[in-house]
Protein backbone atom coordinates (compact mmCIF):
# COMPACT_ATOMS: atom_id res chain seq x y z
CA UNK A 1 0.00 0.00 0.00
CA UNK A 2 2.86 2.39 0.89
CA UNK A 3 4.52 1.41 -2.36
CA UNK A 4 1.34 2.08 -4.34
CA UNK A 5 0.98 5.53 -2.75
CA UNK A 6 4.64 6.38 -3.37
CA UNK A 7 4.45 5.36 -7.02
CA UNK A 8 1.19 7.30 -7.41
CA UNK A 9 2.75 10.47 -5.97
CA UNK A 10 5.81 10.01 -8.15
CA UNK A 11 3.68 9.64 -11.29
CA UNK A 12 1.63 12.74 -10.41
CA UNK A 13 4.82 14.74 -9.73
CA UNK A 14 6.07 13.67 -13.17
CA UNK A 15 2.79 14.92 -14.71
CA UNK A 16 3.14 18.31 -12.96
CA UNK A 17 6.78 18.58 -14.04
CA UNK A 18 6.00 17.85 -17.67
CA UNK A 19 2.86 19.98 -17.86
CA UNK A 20 4.00 23.00 -15.82
CA UNK A 21 0.42 24.36 -15.82
CA UNK A 22 -1.82 24.46 -12.76
CA UNK A 23 -5.29 24.84 -14.30
CA UNK A 24 -7.97 22.71 -12.58
CA UNK A 25 -8.74 20.85 -15.80
CA UNK A 26 -5.12 19.81 -16.37
CA UNK A 27 -4.63 18.80 -12.73
CA UNK A 28 -7.84 16.77 -12.93
CA UNK A 29 -6.62 15.03 -16.06
CA UNK A 30 -3.33 14.34 -14.27
CA UNK A 31 -5.12 12.70 -11.35
CA UNK A 32 -7.26 10.61 -13.70
CA UNK A 33 -4.27 9.37 -15.69
CA UNK A 34 -2.28 8.63 -12.53
CA UNK A 35 -5.16 6.52 -11.23
CA UNK A 36 -5.53 4.78 -14.60
CA UNK A 37 -1.81 3.97 -14.66
CA UNK A 38 -1.95 2.58 -11.12
CA UNK A 39 -5.02 0.49 -12.00
CA UNK A 40 -3.30 -0.99 -15.06
CA UNK A 41 -0.10 -1.68 -13.09
CA UNK A 42 -2.15 -3.33 -10.34
CA UNK A 43 -3.90 -5.52 -12.94
CA UNK A 44 -0.50 -6.52 -14.34
CA UNK A 45 0.49 -7.63 -10.84
CA UNK A 46 3.38 -5.18 -10.51
CA UNK A 47 2.71 -4.48 -6.82
CA UNK A 48 2.93 -8.07 -5.67
CA UNK A 49 5.50 -8.49 -2.94
CA UNK A 50 8.59 -9.73 -4.76
CA UNK A 51 11.47 -11.59 -3.17
CA UNK A 52 13.18 -8.75 -1.32
CA UNK A 53 16.32 -10.62 -0.30
CA UNK A 54 18.26 -9.41 -3.31
CA UNK A 55 18.65 -5.65 -3.65
CA UNK A 56 20.24 -3.47 -6.30
CA UNK A 57 23.00 -0.99 -5.62
CA UNK A 58 22.24 2.45 -7.08
CA UNK A 59 25.89 3.55 -7.15
CA UNK A 60 26.81 0.31 -8.87
CA UNK A 61 24.09 0.95 -11.45
CA UNK A 62 25.39 4.47 -12.23
CA UNK A 63 28.96 3.14 -12.59
CA UNK A 64 27.62 0.40 -14.87
CA UNK A 65 25.87 3.00 -17.06
CA UNK A 66 29.20 4.74 -17.60
CA UNK A 67 30.84 1.48 -18.68
CA UNK A 68 27.84 0.67 -20.91
CA UNK A 69 28.06 4.07 -22.66
CA UNK A 70 31.65 3.28 -23.71
CA UNK A 71 30.59 -0.17 -24.98
CA UNK A 72 27.71 1.38 -26.96
CA UNK A 73 30.09 3.90 -28.55
CA UNK A 74 32.53 1.12 -29.53
CA UNK A 75 29.93 -1.13 -31.12
CA UNK A 76 28.22 1.83 -32.82
CA UNK A 77 31.51 2.53 -34.52
CA UNK A 78 31.93 -1.08 -35.64
CA UNK A 79 28.43 -1.19 -37.18
CA UNK A 80 29.01 2.22 -38.81
CA UNK A 81 32.13 0.81 -40.50
CA UNK A 82 30.13 -2.15 -41.82
CA UNK A 83 27.39 0.13 -43.21
CA UNK A 84 29.82 2.48 -44.94
CA UNK A 85 32.03 -0.28 -46.36
CA UNK A 86 32.02 -0.69 -50.15
CA UNK A 87 30.70 -4.23 -49.95
CA UNK A 88 28.68 -5.32 -46.94
CA UNK A 89 30.00 -8.54 -45.40
CA UNK A 90 27.89 -10.07 -42.66
CA UNK A 91 28.12 -13.37 -40.81
CA UNK A 92 24.90 -13.42 -38.88
CA UNK A 93 24.53 -15.95 -36.08
CA UNK A 94 22.11 -16.90 -33.34
CA UNK A 95 23.78 -18.15 -30.18
CA UNK A 96 23.01 -18.78 -26.51
CA UNK A 97 24.35 -16.55 -23.75
CA UNK A 98 24.32 -17.82 -20.16
CA UNK A 99 22.92 -15.46 -17.52
CA UNK A 100 23.68 -15.30 -13.80
CA UNK A 101 21.22 -12.65 -12.53
CA UNK A 102 18.94 -13.63 -9.67
CA UNK A 103 16.25 -10.96 -10.07
CA UNK A 104 13.96 -10.10 -12.96
CA UNK A 105 15.24 -6.51 -12.89
CA UNK A 106 18.81 -7.75 -13.34
CA UNK A 107 17.73 -9.91 -16.29
CA UNK A 108 15.85 -7.00 -17.88
CA UNK A 109 18.94 -4.83 -17.47
CA UNK A 110 21.15 -7.47 -19.12
CA UNK A 111 18.76 -8.08 -22.03
CA UNK A 112 18.30 -4.35 -22.63
CA UNK A 113 22.06 -3.75 -22.45
CA UNK A 114 22.64 -6.41 -25.11
CA UNK A 115 20.13 -4.72 -27.42
CA UNK A 116 21.44 -1.20 -26.70
CA UNK A 117 24.87 -2.14 -28.00
CA UNK A 118 24.34 -2.31 -31.78
CA UNK A 119 25.44 -5.56 -33.46
CA UNK A 120 23.73 -7.73 -30.83
CA UNK A 121 20.00 -8.27 -30.17
CA UNK A 122 18.37 -10.41 -27.50
CA UNK A 123 15.78 -12.54 -29.27
CA UNK A 124 14.49 -14.93 -26.62
CA UNK A 125 14.55 -14.64 -22.82
CA UNK A 126 12.25 -17.44 -21.73
CA UNK A 127 14.95 -19.77 -20.47
CA UNK A 128 17.92 -19.46 -18.16
CA UNK A 129 20.04 -18.54 -21.20
CA UNK A 130 19.31 -15.71 -23.62
CA UNK A 131 19.16 -16.32 -27.36
CA UNK A 132 21.18 -13.53 -28.97
CA UNK A 133 21.46 -12.53 -32.62
CA UNK A 134 24.78 -11.03 -33.75
CA UNK A 135 25.56 -9.18 -36.97
CA UNK A 136 29.14 -10.45 -37.36
CA UNK A 137 31.40 -13.16 -35.94
CA UNK A 138 33.33 -10.40 -34.24
CA UNK A 139 30.19 -9.17 -32.43
CA UNK A 140 29.28 -12.71 -31.32
CA UNK A 141 31.93 -12.45 -28.63
CA UNK A 142 30.93 -14.60 -25.68
CA UNK A 143 33.74 -13.23 -23.51
CA UNK A 144 32.55 -9.63 -23.89
CA UNK A 145 28.97 -10.65 -23.08
CA UNK A 146 30.17 -12.66 -20.07
CA UNK A 147 31.94 -9.51 -18.87
CA UNK A 148 28.66 -7.56 -19.19
CA UNK A 149 26.81 -10.36 -17.38
CA UNK A 150 29.36 -10.29 -14.54
CA UNK A 151 29.16 -6.51 -14.18
CA UNK A 152 25.35 -6.57 -13.92
CA UNK A 153 25.40 -9.39 -11.38
CA UNK A 154 27.74 -7.35 -9.16
CA UNK A 155 25.00 -4.67 -8.96
CA UNK A 156 22.80 -7.21 -7.18
CA UNK A 157 23.60 -7.92 -3.56
CA UNK A 158 21.94 -9.92 -0.82
CA UNK A 159 20.44 -8.00 2.05
CA UNK A 160 22.67 -9.76 4.59
CA UNK A 161 25.88 -8.65 2.85
CA UNK A 162 25.13 -4.93 3.01
Amino acid sequence: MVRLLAIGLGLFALWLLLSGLFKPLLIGLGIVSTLATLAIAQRMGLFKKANNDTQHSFVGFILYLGWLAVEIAKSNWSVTRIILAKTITLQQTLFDVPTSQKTDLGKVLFANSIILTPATITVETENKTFLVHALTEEAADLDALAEMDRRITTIEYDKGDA
Partner: protein
Amino acid sequence: MSILDIVINGVSWVSIVTGSIFLIIGATGIIRFPDFWSRLHAAAIVDSAGAGLLLLGMALQAGLTFVTIKLVLIGIFLLITGPTSTHAIANAAFVSGSRPLGDKSGKPVVPADVIEPPLTAEPITAELNEDLTSKT
Protein backbone atom coordinates in the same frame (compact mmCIF):
# COMPACT_ATOMS: atom_id res chain seq x y z
CA MET B 1 30.33 35.76 -24.04
CA SER B 2 32.82 34.01 -21.84
CA ILE B 3 35.22 31.27 -22.92
CA LEU B 4 33.08 28.66 -21.15
CA ASP B 5 30.01 29.67 -23.16
CA ILE B 6 31.94 29.33 -26.40
CA VAL B 7 33.24 25.89 -25.42
CA ILE B 8 29.77 24.65 -24.39
CA ASN B 9 28.26 26.03 -27.59
CA GLY B 10 30.97 24.34 -29.64
CA VAL B 11 30.55 20.95 -27.92
CA SER B 12 26.79 21.24 -28.32
CA TRP B 13 27.02 21.90 -32.06
CA VAL B 14 29.56 19.12 -32.57
CA SER B 15 27.25 16.61 -30.87
CA ILE B 16 24.17 17.81 -32.77
CA VAL B 17 25.97 17.51 -36.11
CA THR B 18 27.54 14.13 -35.25
CA GLY B 19 24.15 12.87 -34.04
CA SER B 20 22.57 13.91 -37.34
CA ILE B 21 25.34 12.14 -39.26
CA PHE B 22 24.66 8.97 -37.26
CA LEU B 23 20.95 9.27 -38.13
CA ILE B 24 21.87 9.38 -41.83
CA ILE B 25 24.27 6.44 -41.40
CA GLY B 26 21.55 4.45 -39.64
CA ALA B 27 19.06 5.21 -42.43
CA THR B 28 21.68 4.21 -45.04
CA GLY B 29 22.19 0.96 -43.16
CA ILE B 30 18.46 0.21 -43.12
CA ILE B 31 18.45 0.53 -46.93
CA ARG B 32 21.76 -1.23 -47.64
CA PHE B 33 21.48 -4.23 -45.32
CA PRO B 34 20.09 -7.39 -46.93
CA ASP B 35 17.48 -8.77 -44.53
CA PHE B 36 15.21 -8.06 -41.55
CA TRP B 37 17.69 -9.08 -38.85
CA SER B 38 20.59 -6.96 -40.06
CA ARG B 39 18.29 -3.96 -40.55
CA LEU B 40 17.36 -4.12 -36.87
CA HIS B 41 21.02 -3.44 -36.07
CA ALA B 42 21.09 -0.40 -38.34
CA ALA B 43 18.00 0.92 -36.56
CA ALA B 44 19.82 0.42 -33.24
CA ILE B 45 22.39 3.04 -34.35
CA VAL B 46 19.61 5.58 -34.82
CA ASP B 47 18.31 4.71 -31.35
CA SER B 48 21.57 4.92 -29.43
CA ALA B 49 24.13 7.16 -31.14
CA GLY B 50 21.73 9.34 -33.14
CA ALA B 51 19.13 10.10 -30.47
CA GLY B 52 21.71 10.17 -27.65
CA LEU B 53 24.01 12.74 -29.27
CA LEU B 54 21.10 14.92 -30.43
CA LEU B 55 19.63 14.98 -26.91
CA LEU B 56 23.04 15.77 -25.43
CA GLY B 57 23.53 18.64 -27.87
CA MET B 58 20.07 20.07 -27.18
CA ALA B 59 20.56 19.77 -23.41
CA LEU B 60 23.83 21.75 -23.68
CA GLN B 61 22.00 24.42 -25.69
CA ALA B 62 19.24 24.69 -23.09
CA GLY B 63 21.57 24.85 -20.06
CA LEU B 64 20.28 24.13 -16.54
CA THR B 65 16.57 24.64 -17.21
CA PHE B 66 13.29 22.75 -17.20
CA VAL B 67 13.89 21.93 -20.84
CA THR B 68 17.01 19.96 -19.89
CA ILE B 69 15.09 17.97 -17.27
CA LYS B 70 12.53 17.08 -19.94
CA LEU B 71 15.30 16.12 -22.39
CA VAL B 72 16.87 13.84 -19.76
CA LEU B 73 13.46 12.24 -19.17
CA ILE B 74 13.06 11.68 -22.92
CA GLY B 75 16.50 10.06 -22.90
CA ILE B 76 15.58 7.73 -20.03
CA PHE B 77 12.30 6.71 -21.68
CA LEU B 78 14.08 6.08 -24.98
CA LEU B 79 16.67 3.92 -23.18
CA ILE B 80 13.86 1.73 -21.83
CA THR B 81 11.36 1.65 -24.70
CA GLY B 82 13.82 1.41 -27.62
CA PRO B 83 15.38 -1.94 -26.69
CA THR B 84 12.03 -3.30 -25.51
CA SER B 85 10.33 -2.66 -28.84
CA THR B 86 13.36 -4.00 -30.75
CA HIS B 87 13.17 -7.17 -28.66
CA ALA B 88 9.41 -7.48 -29.26
CA ILE B 89 9.89 -7.25 -33.05
CA ALA B 90 12.87 -9.64 -33.07
CA ASN B 91 11.07 -12.13 -30.84
CA ALA B 92 7.93 -12.04 -33.00
CA ALA B 93 10.06 -12.64 -36.11
CA PHE B 94 11.91 -15.54 -34.44
CA VAL B 95 8.78 -17.24 -33.16
CA SER B 96 7.06 -16.96 -36.55
CA GLY B 97 10.00 -18.76 -38.16
CA SER B 98 12.16 -16.01 -39.69
CA ARG B 99 15.90 -16.78 -39.64
CA PRO B 100 18.87 -14.54 -40.55
CA LEU B 101 20.43 -14.85 -44.00
CA GLY B 102 23.28 -17.35 -43.96
CA ASP B 103 22.48 -18.51 -40.43
CA LYS B 104 24.44 -21.67 -39.66
CA SER B 105 23.45 -22.06 -36.02
CA GLY B 106 20.83 -24.66 -36.94
CA LYS B 107 18.19 -23.31 -34.56
CA PRO B 108 14.98 -25.16 -35.34
CA VAL B 109 12.27 -23.04 -36.92
CA VAL B 110 9.86 -23.85 -34.13
CA PRO B 111 11.97 -24.65 -31.05
CA ALA B 112 10.02 -26.91 -28.76
CA ASP B 113 11.47 -25.42 -25.58
CA VAL B 114 10.67 -21.83 -26.55
CA ILE B 115 6.96 -22.00 -27.32
CA GLU B 116 4.96 -23.43 -24.45
CA PRO B 117 2.26 -24.54 -24.90
CA PRO B 118 2.76 -25.28 -28.61
CA LEU B 119 0.91 -22.84 -30.84
CA THR B 120 -1.52 -25.13 -32.61
CA ALA B 121 -4.85 -24.03 -34.00
CA GLU B 122 -6.55 -27.36 -33.37
CA PRO B 123 -8.15 -26.83 -29.93
CA ILE B 124 -9.72 -23.53 -31.00
CA THR B 125 -11.19 -24.88 -34.22
CA ALA B 126 -12.47 -27.92 -32.33
CA GLU B 127 -14.33 -25.64 -29.93
CA LEU B 128 -15.69 -23.58 -32.80
CA ASN B 129 -16.88 -26.74 -34.54
CA GLU B 130 -18.67 -27.88 -31.41
CA ASP B 131 -20.40 -24.55 -31.15
CA LEU B 132 -21.46 -24.74 -34.77
CA THR B 133 -22.73 -28.29 -34.44
CA SER B 134 -24.66 -27.53 -31.25
CA LYS B 135 -26.43 -24.61 -32.92
CA THR B 136 -27.49 -26.55 -36.02
